[in-house]
């Protein structure tokens, strides 16, 4: 592995002092789980001069519900700890499902949702779930913090809007809408331990005691250079009384938002069909969770 120096600040102030000296993109790289980074350094995809462990900083370990703001999920909170948090299990089902799909148990015990987002792979399993829950990303650096919608975070495969001297502090998941449910499914050729050929998260909110859709969110992974929302399908669903026909039409509409490539994992046609199937299945899972089976 290429040589680098290692530092482990214990406070935000100490971290910002280290980041203040950074000028070149990629010169410093934070490490949380390391499950992507170490492999990337070994294979030469990334070559930081400094690897900065941010897990000793208390703010990075925050997992806290704040009334009126939502759930603060710090950069260093592992997938395992995220999925075990009762509020995530109750109110952010798709996030919990994503946590259980990222790599193996060994990976989930180290890797974090924020790390999965910051690594910015188009196939990242947590991102569609973050998108349907309208997560925002809090970046921190010597010039302070800034908060941007997760939807605006990605700029390309492995790339995002963070500056060379910024790291992701946390994501914030706003309170889910009333009477809502979210689910994530991906397709892989194996049962476990693979990268999504396509992944879809949906969130549905229904008027009480009915199948009238008051809010729909659909997000797609692995079918474009960055994860995307399927906004046409969302708009199509909102305000409608959900029926089998409507669900099927929405799934077909979601395909219009996908711009996949053909590669070793699947062809364009196959991936588009997966978007349709996974959208329909996750919408039905949401209805099921809301006791409104069709």
């Amino acid at each position, binding site marked *: 592995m290429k040589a*680098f*120096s290692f530092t482990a600040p214990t406070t935000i102030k100490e971290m910002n002092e280290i980041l203040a000296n950074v000028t070149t993109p990629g010169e410093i790289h934070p*490490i949380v789980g390391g*499950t992507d980074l170490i492999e990337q350094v070994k294979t030469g995809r990334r070559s930081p001069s400094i690897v900065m462990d941010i897990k000793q900083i208390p703010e990075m370990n925050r997992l806290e519900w704040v009334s009126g703001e939502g759930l603060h999920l710090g950069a260093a909170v592992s997938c395992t700890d995220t999925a075990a948090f009762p509020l995530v299990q109750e109110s952010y089902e798709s996030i919990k499902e994503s946590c259980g799909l990222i790599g193996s*148990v060994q*990976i989930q*015990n180290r890797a974090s949702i924020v790390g999965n987002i910051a690594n910015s792979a188009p196939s990242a399993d947590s991102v569609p779930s973050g998108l349907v829950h309208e997560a925002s990303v809090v970046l921190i650096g010597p010039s302070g913090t800034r908060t941007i919608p997760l939807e605006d975070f990605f700029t390309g495969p492995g790339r995002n809007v963070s500056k060379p001297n910024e790291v992701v502090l946390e994501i914030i998941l706003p309170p889910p809408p009333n009477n809502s449910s979210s689910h994530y499914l991906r397709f892989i050729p194996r*049962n476990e331990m693979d990268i999504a050929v396509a992944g879809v998260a949906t969130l549905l909110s229904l008027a009480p005691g009915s199948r009238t859709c008051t809010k729909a969110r659909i997000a797609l992974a692995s079918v474009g250079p960055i994860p995307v929302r399927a906004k046409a399908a969302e708009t199509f669903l909102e305000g409608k009384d959900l029926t089998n026909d409507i669900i099927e039409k929405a799934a077909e509409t979601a395909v219009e938002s996908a711009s996949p490539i053909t590669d070793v994992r699947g062809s364009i046609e196959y991936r588009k069909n997966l978007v349709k199937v996974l959208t329909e299945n996750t919408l039905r899972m949401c209805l099921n969770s809301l006791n409104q089976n069709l």
Partner: protein
Amino acid sequence: MPKIRVSFIVNQEPVEILAEPWQTLMDALRENLRLTGTKEGCGNGNCGACTVMLNGKAIDSCCMLAAEAEGQNVTTVEGLANGEQLDPLQQAFIDFGALQCGFCTPGFLVSARAFLNENPNPSEQDIRFAIAGNLCRCTGYDKIVRAIQHVADSGH
């Protein structure tokens, strides 16, 4: 680049090593501490041959820097037996023939021990998901699953 002094617990004993900043925990265990039960398979978090427990949880030691282990509690396959008394999982792997070449076995044993400590009454499917991060190219997994199930069923 100066080496880093790292103090941590390995198999209930305090240790102190001098690690290169880029050295993985796996390499530190094998090279600095001569605990060669932990194996390198893929070196990128796919195969689980390097699995150790970090504070009781199974992790891939090839995907962690030795420097990150400061103050942490690590258990390797060498720490499973109590003196000459094998961990029931080790005995079951022998009894059920749950290994052939044995290269993946330390990783399976550590994964299974961490899993059973948290889930004493697993279903077969629970076991299969728990060891999904450990690859074996010769047993076909069934004997491994049966060995783990046997230990769970006998309450160990």
